[in-house]
């Protein structure tokens, strides 16, 4: 048993994402203390309505990530369509139009890898439903740097490909959790003085 202190949650999600994020954000406590940064794969020309939609589902503030945003606790940042979202080591956000990674822009791996540099072992990374293997490499790096890895139980996923790929790549994540329980686990992990 040791005290763990977490400073940021990153979430990667693809097919079936709107529902999964709705369930999770609805369940996060109103005083959730740390930031949540989300990459959701979207069509490149979709408008950034996701943040607006999700804002109705949670007590926390949901916003579309903007470049140079200072990452703040209790705020959920959603990646805009057709940009990569990166976390700088000074804990601000950056966007890029670099080539697709794993056929995706935004790419979950890009977010996770840069989040590892910024937060190291204070990072919680979550892979949810999706039909690609994006995020597997990033999740592996999170674990290699003593961050905390959570994967949605594939049995509860709209598409099980992404969670299964992530579980295989990092064999095994710290937790494999049914969708309905992800928010409760995040609430627990981020409660002050919580011991693993």
């Amino acid at each position: 048993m040791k005290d763990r202190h977490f400073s940021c949650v990153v979430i990667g999600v693809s097919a079936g994402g709107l529902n999964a994020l709705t369930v999770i954000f609805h369940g996060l406590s109103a005083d959730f203390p740390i930031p949540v940064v989300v990459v959701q794969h979207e069509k490149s020309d979709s408008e950034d309505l996701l943040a607006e939609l999700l804002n109705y589902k949670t007590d926390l503030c949901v916003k579309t990530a903007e470049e140079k945003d200072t990452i703040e606790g209790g705020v959920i940042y959603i990646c805009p369509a057709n940009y990569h979202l990166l976390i700088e080591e000074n804990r601000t956000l950056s966007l890029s139009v670099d080539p697709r990674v794993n056929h995706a822009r935004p790419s979950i791996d890009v977010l996770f890898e840069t989040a590892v540099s910024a937060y190291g072992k204070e990072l919680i990374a979550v892979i949810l439903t999706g039909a690609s293997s994006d995020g597997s490499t990033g999740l592996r790096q999170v674990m290699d740097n003593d961050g905390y890895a959570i994967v949605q139980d594939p049995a509860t996923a709209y598409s099980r490909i992404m969670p299964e790929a992530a579980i295989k790549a990092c064999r095994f994540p710290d937790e494999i959790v049914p969708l309905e329980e992800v928010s409760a686990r995040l609430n627990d992990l981020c409660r002050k003085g919580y011991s693993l």
Partner: protein
Amino acid sequence: MISGNEERDNENLEINLLIRAVKEKYGYDFSGYSRASLKRRIKKSLSESDADSISSMIHRIIYEKEYFHNLLLNLSINVTEMFRDPGFFRSIRDEVIPVLAELASIRIWHAGCSTGEEVYSMAILLKEAGIYNKCQIFATDFNQVVLEKAKEGILPIGNLKESTRNYQKSGGRGSFADWYTARYDFAVMKSVLRKNILFADHNLVSDEVFSQVDLVMCRNVLIYFDRPLQNRVFKLFSNSLSHGGFLAIGSKETIHFSSITDEFEKFSTKQKIFRKKI
């Protein structure tokens, strides 16, 4: 065993040294670039070369020009596509071009044009509006290799479908296929589009202003810069623009945190198109 933090700090030290070597040896200054993207690009270069660490890259950068030029290419290419963000080009077509059309002659500057997709997209709009012949278009980038590619105007054939769709969504009334010649596995933009384009070497980090430009296009370049460098570039743009001239930036970029914000007014409600106050 070294900790994750120490490993990260060591890597950052190597990257700082690399940036310094590139600047002192070749004059390109990347110190004002957003670090996370730059780091990814340097590491990508590392993985593609046979160097085994960033430190050994530095040695090769200093002693092998060609090695440096390959790195520079990796550090400078911004992937773009024809009519990226069709809504933006629709605003240029419907809102900006009618104003430009009133001018006797028109000067347009594409800053950081990379491989030129946006320059050709714009040229098509100007052609279709019938005002191309009174335009002088400057397309600049700091990298000679991408400039050469831009000059050639070659599109990979795989991108044509998306380009055509974007063209139509941007309000294109003709046929996109009229603007290129298809070859075996690529397409070449028609030379009539290139006639009034001057491709030139220009570095936003260190070079000076253009004079009396009526429209500056610089989209998705500033997101790679830190705030002080963004501010420098915004001043450059403001000083280059004539009064009433337009500044078009990427949909996720903003002039609000820069010192020129008071010199401009919002022109388009939906797009990041600003107009220099008269």
